C-alpha cells in the first residue's frame, strides 16, 4: 500500500469538517493536556491524583505523536502509540497496586508521608 493510496483512503473516510483541523490544533490540545498534567503533578499531594496526572501527560504525548504521524503520513507514529497504550495499561495496574500498598503502610495517600526515603 503506497502513501498516495493511504492518503486517498484517509481523505475519503473523513468528514468534511475535520479537514479544517490542522496539526496546530492537535498540538495545542496536546500541550494543554500536558500542562494540565504537569501542573497537577506539581501541585497535588494525593498519590492517585499525581498518578492520574502522569497518565494525562502520557496521553498528551500520544496525541502529539499521532498528530505528527498523520501530518507526515507515516504509520509508525500510530503504531508507537498502540504499544505505548499497552505498556501504560500494565504500568497503571502496577502503579495502582503500589499506591494501595503505600496506603496500607501509612493510612494516607499523601506523597509527603514518604519524605524519609531521601536516603
Amino acid at each position: 500500500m503506497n502513501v498516495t493510496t493511504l492518503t486517498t483512503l484517509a481523505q475519503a473516510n473523513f468528514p468534511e469538517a475535520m479537514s479544517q483541523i490542522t496539526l496546530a490544533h492537535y498540538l495545542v490540545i496536546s500541550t494543554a493536556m500536558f500542562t494540565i498534567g504537569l501542573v497537577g503533578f506539581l501541585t497535588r499531594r494525593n498519590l492517585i491524583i499525581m498518578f492520574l496526572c502522569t497518565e494525562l501527560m502520557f496521553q498528551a504525548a500520544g496525541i502529539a505523536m499521532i498528530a505528527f504521524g498523520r501530518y507526515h503520513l507515516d504509520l509508525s507514529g500510530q503504531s508507537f502509540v498502540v504499544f505505548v497504550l499497552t505498556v501504560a495499561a500494565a504500568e497503571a495496574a502496577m502503579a495502582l497496586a503500589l499506591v494501595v500498598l503505600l496506603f496500607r503502610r501509612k493510612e494516607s495517600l499523601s506523597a509527603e508521608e514518604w519524605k524519609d526515603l531521601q536516603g
Partner: protein
Amino acid sequence: MMQALNIFSSIAAHAVASEPAAGVAQAATRTITQGETWMLAIPFLPLLAFVLIALCAAFKVRSKLPAFITVGLLALSFGAALTTFIQHFMGPAAAPILHVHAFDWLHFKAGPEAAQGFVANFAFYIDSLTILWMLFVTGLATLIALYASEYMSHDVGPGYCRFFAAFSLFVFSMSCLVMADNLVLLFLGWEGVGLCSYLLIGYFYKKAPAVAAAKKAFIMNRIGDLGLLMGIFSIYTAFGTVEYAKIFEFFRSGVDATGNQIGSSTWITIIIPLLFTIGAFGKSAQVFLYTWLPDAMEGPTPVSALIHAATMVTAGVFLIARMMPLYQADPNLLILSIVAWSGAITALWSATIEMAIFDIKRVMGYSTISQLGFMFAGLGVLTPEGSAFHVFTHAFFKATLFLGVGAVMHGFGGQLDLRRLSGVGWMKGFGLVAAAVFIGSINLAGFPFTAGFFSKDMILAEAFARPEGQIAGSQAVAWILLITAGMTAYYTFRSFFRVYVGPKQFVPGDDAELVDLGRHPKGVSLDAWHKEHGHGHGHGHEHEHNDHAHRHGSYGGVGDARAHGRQDFDPSTEEFDPHPPGFAMKFAIAACAILTIAAAGLYFVSPAIGEGGGWAAGMVRQSSAVVSAEVLSGHTSGTDEGHAHGTFLGMDPHHVMYYVSAGVGFIGVLIAAFLHGPKGWQGLFLGVRQSCDVAPRADKLANAFGPLTTAARNKYYVDEIYDALITRPLWVLSHIFHLFDQYVVDGLVNLIGALPRFFGKALRPIQSGEMHGYAVGMAGGVAVLLILVVLLVG
C-alpha cells in the same frame, strides 16, 4: 653446570699457556679444578643449622637444643674445611683452585653471544687464601658456639633460639663471603654478615644502648657497602664479568674488556680500588668508619669474640687480599699507600684511646680496630702474607681475650670497669681464665715466640723494608706501627695487671638479668646493694656515666669515691660470690688459648712457595693475594734499576726487627707493670698498686696529661663531632622536609580532597525527599533545555 665448567677449564688452559716464565709468585697456581661436591657442606651446614633452629623457635623449644645443633653442625663444617685443606692444600704440591658449583643463580642475557650478559652463580672458588680463612672461621665459630651455649644459658627459650639462629646464619654468610667465586655472591655474604652483626649487637633489644649500637653498626656499614657495591658495578662495566677467575685473567693479560691497557686507565687503577677500599674500611672499622665497632661491644661477648674480633671485621682485609691484582695494577701503587697510611693512623689513634678508657671490653674493641689497622698497613706495604697471618693469629688470641672478658662479665654480674676488679686470677674457678688471658695478652703485646709476635713482626719488617718511593711514606708508616706496638703492649698489660692479678677485690656489676635469676647467691637485691653502696643506677654503662659525672674529680670516678670516704666504695666480697665459668666455657677458652700457642708453630713451617713467613705466607703466595715479583721489586714504577732495600736505622729490618719489636713490647709491659702492677712479684716488683680502684702512679700520670686524658677517655669526642657535623644537620634538614611535606605537599592533597567535600556540602540540601521538589527540578531542567534549544537552534 657443564657449560660453566667448560668456561672455567678454557680459562685454566689459557692461563697455563700464557703463564709468564718470570716471577715465582705467579707460577703454577692457576689451574682451576673441579672440587668435590661434599665441600658444599662448609657453607651449607651452618645454613642447615639456621633452618633447624628456626624450627626450634617455631616449636617453642625451651632447652639447649639450639646450641647442640649449632655446635654439632659447625663442627662438621669445620671438619669439611679441614678435610679440604688436608686433601688439597697440604704439602709441597702447588695449591689448586677448587671450583664447586652449587646452583645457577643469576643469569641475564644481554646479547646473542655467551660472553654478553651477566652471570653470577652460587658457586665457590676455593684457593689457599679461602681455605686459610675458612679454617679459622669455622673452627673458632665451633668453639665460640660451645662457649655461648653456657654463656647464654640465662636466656634459654626464644632468646636462645634467636641467638644461635643468627650465629649460624652468620657463619653461612661469612662462608659465602670468603668462598664466593664472584663478587655478587661475596656481596650477598657481605650483607649477610652485616645483618647478623646487627641482629646480635641488638640481642638485648630491651636495652636502649644495645639497640642504638646495632642501628649505628648497620648504618655505618651501609656507607662502606655503598663503596663496595659501586666497585662491583665498576668492575662489571670494565670487564663484563664479576667472576674472579675471569677478572684475574684480565689482569694477567693486562688489557680490559675493550682492549685498553689496564695500567693506563685511571678508572681501573684508582677509582675502582678506592671504592673497594671504602667498602673494606666500613666492614673492618677503619679511619672514618670505625666508630661503630666500639659500640658493637653492647652485644653478648661471644658475638664480640667471633664477629667483632675474629672473623667479620677481617672481611675488609680479605676483600683487599682477594682483589690484590686490582690494587697492583696501578704503577704508582697510590691506593695501597692510602691503605697503608689509613691502617697506621687508625692503629695509633685507637691505641691512644685504649690507654685511657676503663671498660675492659671496650679496650678489646679498640684493640681490634688497632690490630685491623696493622693488617691494613700490612696490605698497604705489600705484605699480604703478614696481614693474612696476622688475621689468623689475631683471630685466635683476640677470641681468647674476649672469651676471658666474657667469663669475667659472666662471673661478676657484668662488671667491666677495670677499677672495680682486681686479682680475679686468684679467685676460685678463675685461674684458667687468667692463664688463658695471659696467653692472649702476651700474643697481643708481641712477646717473643708467640704467634702475635711473628705475625706483627712480618708487617713491621716489611714496612721498614719497602724501598723508598715505592709506597709513599712507608718509613713513617713503619715508625707509627712500631710505636703503636709498644702502646699495644702497654694497654694489654694495663688490663691484665689491673684485673687479673693483685689483691682480691671486686665490685659486682649491676646486671639486672642475673639478679632476676637469683644469681646473687646471698640474696642481696640490686637496689638494696646500691642503697648500701651509694652507687648510681646506670645500666651497663655505669662507668661511662661516672666518667662524665666525675670529670672534675682527681682521677675519674675512683677519686670521688675515695673523697666520699671508704664506706662508699667497699670492694668487699661479702654479698656476692663470683660465678666461675663452667665446663663448656672453660673448654672453649682453654682450646682457644692452646690454639693460640700452636699458631706460633705455623711460623716455623716452611712455606709451600717463596721464602720466609711460614705456613700462612706460603698459603697467601699461592692465592690471588700474592704480590707479583715485578711489583715487589719496584720495577713497575718506571725506573729500570731496582730501588734500594729499605732499612731500619741502617740495618736490615728482616733480621733486626725481631729484637726491636720484642724490645718495644717489653718496654710497654714494664711501663704497664710500673703504673698499674700490684705491689710485689705479681707486678714484677715494679708496681705499687694496693687496691683495685687506685693505681697511684697511673692516676698521677693521667692527671699530668689533663685534657688529653679526658679527650682520649671520651674517645676524642668523635661521636659528638659526627653528631654535630652529620647527624644534627641531617636532623634539621629532615625536619625542614617534614614541614614542607606537612604544609605544602599534604596541603595540596588535602585541598584536592576538600573540593568534592565542599560541593557535596553545598548541594546536599537538594536531596530533600520531597517528590515535588524533584519533579520541579526535572521540569525546570527540561524547560531550561528547551529554551536553550530554541535560542541556539531556532
